[in-house]
């Protein structure tokens, strides 16, 4: 009988066309078959130019989808689209490449347009056991389906388009087990922020991370996507969760799901997509879900975060190797040591991004916003994760809750998560944000980002300061 295998190794083995060294262990160099990719307008152009220059074709055009998401305006008046010349050219070139290479493209005004990592799963294009590589670091999102998803650069996009493969190094494995039950008001975002805080921004570099345990099993598929999405912020190249019935049910409801017959056949195989009992991981981390508080970031790296009840740390209390970075981060964030986080006033509030802009995220925020108003002086925006999410929310009346509270109900795109479009912070502005990166300048030069869950953004928006959602929403949480 063969040795017990991790879920990660099972999927790699199933996609290994040939091995260059036959080691079968971490570090093995192999040619990996890629099931699918999604292309955006800003990391794909040079890949297509490379194909054109070399006279190469796309190996399997039907395995690719192109979506405009990074540079488009989210202005609700779609004809007001404030596109600069570069953005316009990128969008045009994506369509041109789709036409010339036979790849389906969702352009700016396609009813299916949205953030790539929201669009792919909601269409039913992400199926357990797949390998999906794409030109965006948050491709780890697909791990929620039992999929090896990972980000690649443009040269590898070109390689993938031309060959349907990547030259791949087998990763080491880490398992993060979260048993216990999340307390009321605590979300998947808080959970993953606590994991990142605990292991550090480089804590999982070189690893495929499998998330397991009662707290993961209890989460819905969209919440699981939040965790896998943000796992890249602790360096994970791949995030994985064993697919269960919730995943199959989610897929069954998607427009491009396999037919019921095919789904039944698939379901039997998908049951085997789990780490074998006794499978060995290179690292193991364990957390108790009950210990996880509502989290907010205070610094400029996603691991610089704390419970909302805490205070900005004193660099002298930090390990020596983290001190200089903390001092630099505090200067950029204009925060003094010992400042209670709940005393920090905000200028902006943003709900959006591939991390936290799906329908359940919007519902979470709406629960807090219902009957409340955004604090004076705060500009609040919501950009639903896809045009489909936007329509679904409107069908439920959630848009009215946001609008009545004083939020701008925007169109879909990456928007203020990375501010490649006209949504950005002014220098010095401070934003409560449901996004994934608090890097210097991420939301605009000199802009200051505090990461948190959508419900916590809603709480901050109505309070005007970083706020503890639990204090605000006693009845909503019960």
């Amino acid at each position: 009988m063969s040795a017990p295998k991790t879920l990660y190794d099972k999927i790699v083995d199933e996609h290994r066309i040939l091995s260059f060294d036959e080691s079968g262990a971490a570090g093995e160099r192999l040619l990996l078959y890629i099931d699918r990719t999604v292309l955006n307008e800003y990391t794909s152009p040079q890949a297509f130019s490379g194909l054109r220059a070399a006279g190469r074709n796309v190996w399997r055009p039907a395995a690719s989808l192109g979506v405009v998401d990074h540079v488009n305006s989210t202005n609700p008046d779609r004809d007001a689209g404030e596109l600069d010349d570069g953005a316009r050219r990128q969008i045009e070139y994506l369509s041109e490449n789709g036409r010339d290479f036979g790849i389906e493209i969702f352009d700016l005004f396609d009813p299916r347009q949205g953030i790539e990592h929201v669009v792919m799963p909601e269409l039913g294009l992400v199926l357990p056991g797949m390998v999906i590589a794409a030109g965006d670091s948050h491709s780890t999102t697909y791990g929620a389906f039992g999929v090896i998803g990972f980000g690649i650069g443009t040269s590898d996009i070109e390689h993938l388009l031309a060959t349907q493969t990547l030259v791949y190094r087998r990763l080491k494995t880490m398992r993060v087990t979260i048993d216990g039950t999340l307390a009321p008001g605590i979300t998947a975002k808080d959970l993953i922020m606590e994991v990142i805080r605990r292991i550090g921004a480089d804590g999982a570099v070189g690893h495929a991370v499998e998330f397991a345990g009662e707290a993961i099993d209890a989460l819905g598929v969209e919440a699981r996507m939040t965790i896998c999405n943000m796992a890249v912020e602790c360096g994970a190249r791949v995030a994985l969760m064993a697919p269960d019935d919730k995943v199959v049910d989610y897929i069954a409801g998607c427009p491009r799901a396999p037919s019921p017959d095919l789904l039944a056949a698939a379901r039997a195989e998908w049951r085997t997509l789990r780490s074998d009992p006794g499978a060995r991981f290179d690292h193991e981390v364990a957390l108790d879900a009950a210990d996880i508080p509502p989290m907010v970031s205070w610094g400029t790296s996603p691991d610089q975060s704390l419970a909302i009840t805490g205070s900005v740390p004193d660099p002298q209390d930090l390990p020596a190797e983290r001190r200089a970075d903390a001092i630099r981060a505090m200067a950029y964030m204009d925060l003094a040591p010992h400042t209670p986080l709940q005393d920090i006033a905000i200028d902006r509030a943003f709900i959006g991004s591939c991390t936290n802009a799906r329908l359940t995220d919007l519902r979470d925020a709406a629960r807090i916003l219902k009957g409340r108003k955004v604090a004076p002086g705060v500009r609040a925006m919501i950009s639903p994760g896809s045009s489909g999410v936007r329509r679904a929310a409107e069908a439920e009346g959630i848009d009215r809750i946001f609008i009545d509270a004083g939020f701008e109900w925007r169109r879909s795109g990456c928007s203020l998560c990375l501010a490649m479009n006209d949504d950005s912070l002014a220098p010095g502005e401070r934003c409560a944000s449901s996004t994934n990166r608090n890097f210097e300048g991420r939301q605009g030069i000199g802009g200051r980002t505090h990461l948190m869950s959508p419900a916590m953004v809603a709480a901050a928006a109505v309070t005007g300061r970083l706020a503890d959602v639990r204090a605000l929403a006693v009845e909503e949480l019960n």
Partner: protein
Amino acid sequence: MERFIRLSGRAAAMPAANIDTDVIMPKAYLKGIDRSGLAIGLFHDLRFDDNGALRDDFILNRPDMANTRFLLVGPNFGCGSSREHAVWGMLQYGIRGIIGSSYGAIFADNAANNGLLLLSLPATEIAALMAQLGDGAGDMTVDLDAQRVEMGDYASGFDIDPATRQALMLGLDRIGETLTHAERIRAFEKAYLGRKPWLMAADSDEH
């Protein structure tokens, strides 16, 4: 891509942890459809102030750093966004090698695909090299053929992935290499997709 065999040049220290690709290549320089024009974007918001003037406090702006070829960096350099523009900008600026203890994984792949040398040394070795720099600058030689790095009184061998080393030294055509296996890819694909008919159900050309 330019081959890397042996190179001597200026090295600059950037010891902060987690320097991300948003900082290496800010968003304002991501709006092209080709690879050109990115040298100006490299570390742009660290190099220039709001008025476009050079910042005195940034190491690469020092007069003695005009021909910097190497960066000596802190852990997890190049984390974050997948943007290959960060690597293109490095090379266009003149940086040919980076020496650190760990890197963002996508950044490392992008570097290998473009001939930017990334050396991974233990944190203790990085500290020893930083100590050689004194005021943050020094002259370094990296010999990829001999797998040896030298700076001031410091000299040490290093390990590097053999495939990456070979690609850096020979400048291989990766897609061309893979396409020599086209028949095996095709045979694998046919068997694999045949075994799992549900995979093709979602293919976009069927809709």
